[in-house]
């Protein structure tokens, strides 16, 4: 019998990721059924009783008020989410469990057999109640949560910093909706989070929004058309272009985007402009 596989799950505010350690010592990120490595941490409920998780849930968000996102912000609190479609209140653990169960399912399909154990990461600043809630979510999803690990510790491990060398490192975690910076003291195989700070309202989405506003302004200047926010909705084509623009802008001096959402338009921007646009964030 092969070694037991334990899933490593990054249960994020905006997106979540599931991975496992292969026999060759390499970590494999498991793609979801759509082929993407990250899964939006979004759950939607329909009147028919159907539950939608991940990309599809995100894509139908504007049509369905019973769509829950960013539930991680409520973990550990007694606050419940009321869902009209099912006329039920759900704890944050129950919502998170649906995300975990979805990831467990596609991980099992990818690996080819049942998985029962998982390690889940949480922000270093999570208190006991938040950690317990995360563990509970895993249990509801049918997972035996063998360890809850601090996100910066997991990052340090991923970069192979689990040696006996004694040092202090800074872990910079810029996510979709949150930003965390932690200082870790590593030595003798132990990881101690000395300090953690950040902004849980700052993330990649904010950069996207700035670029979206700039695109809107450019369209207005060139055509006189007002592009409303819904047309620049997170899930729209324009957003996908922006995401690519953001990515490219870091790797090249010049970047192009082409909009075919509402008109034929081609624009280019520079790294300098991107930095200027985002200087106030």
């Amino acid at each position: 019998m092969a070694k037991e596989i334990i899933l490593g799950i990054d249960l994020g505010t905006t997106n979540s990721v599931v991975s496992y350690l292969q026999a060759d010592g390499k970590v494999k990120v498991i793609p979801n059924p759509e082929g993407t490595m990250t899964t939006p941490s979004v759950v939607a409920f329909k009147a028919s009783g159907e539950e939608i998780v991940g990309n599809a849930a995100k894509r139908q968000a504007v049509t369905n008020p019973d769509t829950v996102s960013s539930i991680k912000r409520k973990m550990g609190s007694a606050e419940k989410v009321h869902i009209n479609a099912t006329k039920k209140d759900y704890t944050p653990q129950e919502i998170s469990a649906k995300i975990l169960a979805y990831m467990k399912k596609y991980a099992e399909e990818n690996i080819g057999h049942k998985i029962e154990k998982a390690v889940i990461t949480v922000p270093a600043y999570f208190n006991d109640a938040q950690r317990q809630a995360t563990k509970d979510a895993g249990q509801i999803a049918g997972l035996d949560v063998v360890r809850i690990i601090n996100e910066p510790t997991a990052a340090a491990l991923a970069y192979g910093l689990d040696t006996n060398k004694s040092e202090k490192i800074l872990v910079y975690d810029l996510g979709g909706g949150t930003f965390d910076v932690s200082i870790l003291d590593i030595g003798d195989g132990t990881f101690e989070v000395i300090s953690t700070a950040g902004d849980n309202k700052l993330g990649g989405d904010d950069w996207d929004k700035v670029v979206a506003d700039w695109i809107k302004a450019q369209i207005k200047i060139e055509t006189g058309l007002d592009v409303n926010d819904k047309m620049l909705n997170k899930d729209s084509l324009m957003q996908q272009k922006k995401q690519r623009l953001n990515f490219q802008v870091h790797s090249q001096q010049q970047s192009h985007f082409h909009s075919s959402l509402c008109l034929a338009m081609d624009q280019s921007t520079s790294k300098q402009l991107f930095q200027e646009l985002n200087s106030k964030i």
Partner: protein
Amino acid sequence: MDKETKKENKAQEQIAKLTSDVEHWKNEYYRAYADMKNLREAVEKDHREAIKYRAAGFVENLLPILDGFHMALQCKATSQEMQNFLTGFEFIYRNMVSVLEAEGVTEISPKVGDQFDPNTMSAIETVYDEGKPNRVIKVNVCGYKLHDHLIRPSIVVVSTDKKDEPKSENKEESPKLDA
């Protein structure tokens, strides 16, 4: 205890230890063999997937061009010359589509009135329509799939039977962290 018995006991102990060692290494071997077999299968699967979806990035880069063709072909010809251009555009477009189809690309082009399907469509706006909720009202751009992977969803406007603005996110305010 005579010398012979002692010798026999020692031999028995050695046999027991060696049997245990053999069992241990046999298990280790089986485990390593199973691990390697699983790893080989996983690598082969990844390889197959990589080949199957190798064109994903390329197809994604082609989508603005396809969108351009779509827009051009929606134009109404106002002269014979323009009609000739549009006919040429359509010919080039169809050739391009047939090449993409051969690579496993399929277009997702919902019709107005179709049921909204979040697996292949992305709603950017809702419009009140009490009679037929959750239907496609307008298609902004077509979506594309490469085999069973969604390269881009079709961007649509959807009908709703709720007059109130539906919430799109369930974000809660929480204090800034400064631990």
